[in-house]
């Protein structure tokens, strides 16, 4: 399970949609591509799935160039790009069967696969209806089912919760959380909360540039609110990232337990109102995007 994006650029006429994007992810986990609307997340995912071709650079999935051999490169990939649309006179069931059989699975296997993924994404009730009758949410669920069909090792999802009701969103996030333990998932979103919940790696894209890429160490950052006293915690393995009278942000560099930090804070005269993990992604995003804006 490997995706290597190598110096990918994309130009639409006068508009430079992507500039020299490079990264590599391997093994199970979830890479979240985060960025404002129009940043280039979807463009990058379209290049990864052969929907558009890069102006320069290449994408390799498991070492195979997507552009040159999409049949093999995408064999282990399931994807959901933008709002999915299916041929109007085809039923959802037929669309899923087609997707499955195109992936090379036998008809018998596909029948059980369609059954499995439609159950997973809760779209079984309307699978026998023609897709032209589907609502946006229905299409999204069937599209997600199509991405999951055949149990692919790599799943590329472009804003998968878009158009879903709150229950639907929660269900999809739950599915992704389960899958990322055994699959490599690349997901785009502009919801920081979603990224926070799902990301193991984060790539922040703005104005077509990859301005941050790296693992997310969300369990290492803590935010403590209350009346903060003292300038030093006198605790090895904990750095103060930011502090004022009412809030302190800490980064754990070792396996120090949270109760030890609470004890240290209290012994320095601080009174704690809340103690929680800190949204590092929000911080990263804010810093990166504002920095990028200032530069541009």
């Amino acid at each position, binding site marked *: 399970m490997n995706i290597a994006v190598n110096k990918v650029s994309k130009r639409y006429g006068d508009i430079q949609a992507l500039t020299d994007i490079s990264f590599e992810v391997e093994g199970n986990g979830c890479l979240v591509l985060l960025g404002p609307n129009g940043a280039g997340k979807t463009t990058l995912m*379209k290049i990864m799935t052969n*929907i558009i071709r890069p102006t320069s650079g290449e994408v390799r999935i498991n070492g195979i160039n997507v552009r040159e051999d*999409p049949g093999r490169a995408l064999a282990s*990939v399931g994807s959901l*790009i933008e709002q999915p649309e299916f*041929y109007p006179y*085809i039923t959802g069931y037929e669309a899923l069967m087609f997707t499955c059989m195109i992936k090379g699975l036998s008809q018998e296997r596909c029948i059980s696969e369609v059954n499995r993924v439609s159950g997973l994404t809760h779209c079984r009730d309307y699978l026998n209806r023609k897709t032209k009758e589907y609502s946006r949410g229905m299409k999204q669920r069937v599209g997600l089912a199509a991405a999951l069909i055949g149990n692919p090792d790599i799943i590329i999802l472009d804003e998968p919760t878009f158009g879903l009701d709150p229950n639907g969103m929660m269900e999809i996030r739950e599915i992704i959380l389960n899958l990322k333990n055994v699959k490599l998932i690349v997901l785009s979103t502009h919801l920081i909360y979603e990224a926070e919940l799902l990301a193991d790696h984060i790539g922040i894209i703005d104005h077509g540039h990859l301005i941050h890429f790296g693992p997310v160490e969300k369990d290492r950052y803590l935010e403590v609110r209350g009346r903060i006293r003292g300038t030093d915690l006198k605790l090895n393995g904990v750095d103060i990232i930011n502090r004022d009278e009412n809030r302190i942000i800490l980064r754990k560099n070792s396996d120090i337990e949270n109760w030890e930090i609470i004890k240290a804070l209290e012994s320095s005269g601080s009174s704690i109102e809340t103690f929680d993990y800190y949204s590092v992604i929000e911080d990263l995003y804010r810093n990166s995007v504002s920095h990028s804006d200032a530069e541009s």
Partner: protein
Amino acid sequence: MISWVSSMPNKFSVAFSYYFKNYYRSKSFYLMLALIIIISGIMSYFSFRYQSKINTFLDRFDSTTITTSLKSRALDYIWSFVLVDIPVYAAVFFGSPSISSEIEDRTAFHIFSLPVGRMTILSAKYAAAYAATVLISLIYIILEAIITIRIYGTIDMSSYLLSLMLTLIFIASVLAFTFFISSIFNRNIYAYITVLIIYFLVFNAVDVITSLLYSTTSPFLLNNAANIIMEVFVNINLFTFSPTISLSPASASKIFLAVAVMIIYLVASLAAATVLFENKEAK
């Protein structure tokens, strides 16, 4: 590479049946079906009602003895006269939006990201559109044979089969042409309009001009090549400034020329459509 090549026929058949379902369930298919039934009905009525007019029709041309076989060929000529336009309309319905709709209707986002080569997608879609068009046309062609046999008790089977074979080649050719036009555009309406303008305006204008200037029809235009479908029965073409009038079937060289022209359109259009489709982007 070997596994990829060996999986192609399977992927092709899966894609073919998928696209064929989408075609034969479409409104376009049912509209064409309704039209073909109406046209066939009208033709059948006129064939019975005005069968005596066939003699009048033949008398206008040559003093050759009018045999039953010639009468049946003349009737088939009249039926084929209508037939040559049927694949064009079917191709406009099925072929014109074939590729542009992938972008306009956003189905490309799903299809392009599947582990299947675009050439397989294109060929499967083309084959499905071809099957749908042939299915529509066959209703008319079979009825043509039934009515001819019913009226004259015989049909010139060799001419009929030859005409049928030429119709099948023509369908392939005109459909390929519409696929090519469709691959240029990202909006269905542009593809529809362009196909209609080229086929019914540009081709006819070129034909009229060459006919006027050089006193000959343009055999390299697809619409003229299609006339061979009727000319294999009776070699009459009155629609130019240098009409051909002969009650004999078209000569072999004329048939070969028409087939060569159709194959040129077929191969050139499919190659162009394939190259354009390979580079098609769903932006």
